[in-house]
């Protein structure tokens, strides 16, 4: 018998097993499709965004698609424009004196920068969580969560139910159910941040923007919030700006790398952290420059 030559491996599929399985799942798939329409997520598409601080161009011709019900992380060195991009999505950028943005940011195909669009309604659909937890100091825990609904003049809704639901959604209910009327500032840092997330979620937006939500928190609180983000993405599209690359690795489905106001690379998180296309991405993630 002659020793075999070197051959390349072939993969074969068992066709019969496949067909049997597909029959069984077909019925299930049909049922899923009808409910999928109701649970349809909301994607954000940015096209040719240019953001200015006075005369200085901070974000240059930026285009990206944030898929619905996924977490996308924006990474990059300081000053790369990540926070600016995110603030342009809910039109908070223009609140800074002298700041303006041009281009299109489309939520479900509707451009939020179109003439005559009501900025406050945009912000009701696109919520934001900030780096430093900022519960309203004069309000109780309950009032803080209800603040979003009250400040936007929501009428005819069951406030208590919404607040309780939001607190449960962020996993804070058990910790605060006996102190709903105590000041919101009496909680720990991690709890305060979850309170702010509950406040955002109570308004029932479609997208949640997070600007380094864990930088001011200890590791345990950080992990709790990352867990929360994983649960929230079932119902919201999430964009998170982070300095911490391991966090992007843990939390994000896809990651975008920005440098000096430009989008350098955008891809599945695993690819960005195992085999990025761009040399600059490679240098940043491996820490070859700060």
């Amino acid at each position, binding site marked *: 018998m002659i020793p075999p030559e070197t051959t390349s491996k072939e993969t074969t599929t068992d066709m019969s097993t496949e067909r049997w399985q597909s029959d069984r799942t077909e019925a299930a798939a049909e049922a899923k499709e009808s409910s999928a329409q109701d649970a349809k997520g909301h994607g954000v598409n940015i096209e040719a965004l240019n953001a200015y601080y006075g005369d200085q161009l901070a974000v240059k011709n930026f285009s990206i698609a944030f898929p619905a019900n996924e977490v996308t992380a924006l990474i990059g060195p300081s000053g790369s424009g990540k926070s600016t991009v995110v603030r342009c999505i809910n039109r908070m950028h223009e609140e800074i004196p002298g700041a303006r943005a041009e281009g299109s940011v489309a939520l479900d195909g509707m451009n939020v920068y179109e003439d005559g669009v009501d900025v*406050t309604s945009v912000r*009701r659909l696109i*919520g934001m969580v900030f780096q430093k937890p*900022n519960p*309203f*100091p*004069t309000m109780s825990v309950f009032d803080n969560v209800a603040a979003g609904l009250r*400040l936007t*003049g929501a009428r005819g809704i069951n406030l208590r139910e919404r607040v309780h639901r939001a607190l449960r959604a962020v996993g804070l209910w058990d910790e605060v159910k006996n102190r709903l009327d105590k000041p919101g500032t009496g909680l720990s840092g991690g709890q305060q941040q979850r309170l702010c997330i509950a406040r955002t979620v109570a308004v029932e937006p479609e997208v949640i923007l997070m600007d380094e939500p864990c930088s001011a928190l200890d590791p345990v609180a950080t992990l709790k919030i990352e867990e929360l983000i994983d649960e929230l993405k079932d119902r919201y599209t999430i964009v998170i700006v982070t300095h911490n690359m391991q966090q992007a690795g843990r939390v994000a489905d896809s990651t975008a790398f920005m440098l000096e106001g430009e989008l350098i690379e955008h891809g599945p998180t695993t690819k960005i952290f195992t085999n990025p296309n761009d040399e600059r991405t490679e240098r940043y993630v491996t820490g070859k420059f700060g």
Partner: protein
Amino acid sequence: MSVTALPRVSPRRRRTDKVMRSLLLVATLIALVPLVFIIYYLLHKGLSAVTSSGFFSTDPNGNFFGNPGGIRSAILGTLEMIALATAISVPVGIAVALYLTEYGKESKFANVIRYFVDVMTGVPSIVFGLFIYIVLVISKIGGAFTGWKGAVAISLLMLPIVIRSSEVVLLLVPSSLREAALALGAPRWRVMLRVVLPTSLSGLVTGSLLAVARGMGETAPLLFTAAGAFALTGNLGAQMNALPIQIYNDIQSPRNAITARAWGAGLTLVALVLIINVIARIASRRSRMA
């Protein structure tokens, strides 16, 4: 440099510390001396008048002989005019401060306003009185010398103080709170009303108090406007008495009983300011707990 034993404090250092502490203590005592003296004199000279019968329940009767009467009309006059002046200057002042911090910000117009407000704080109170005298009294609008015109003059005096202190307090509200409220989709006016004002409430109250205390003791504007009458009148549309006017008139009298009344009025005035301070402090503490 390796140390075998921790160095001890040198005697010279200890001496310098002691000298410094003593110097600062002396400076503090020097500053306290006039205050102590004032209180002493007020009590010494005014207590007898204040405790005399009918001091608070009778009006000055302008008699040359006999019981000169109490200061009831003066107290009531002061309270009424200050109340009206506060009702005018505090809302207007806070509104101007809100405009400067929320809308005007660093614009040229806002800076011009700030400049003029600063100028107004330096204007001598007699000028305000003169201004109202010319504009309202001589022109005989709504009567000649009236209480409400006195109130207007005082409110002009209080206004820049309210504006300046309110602006400082409003600027202390962290912008993160405004951002959080805006990001929830609240219109700007709701952010001001429901977030900024409640957060800065205690500071606004304290600032308005400063203005009230100042206004209570001003004599010059009242001389040309309310002019002072002896009889008790609740009618702001007529000439009114006030504590400063009463003191001004009484202290010039040759009669001991009347000068004693002046001291009593002074003591009353100081006591009033003290009471108002305490009330407002309680009120602001309550609002913070809410």
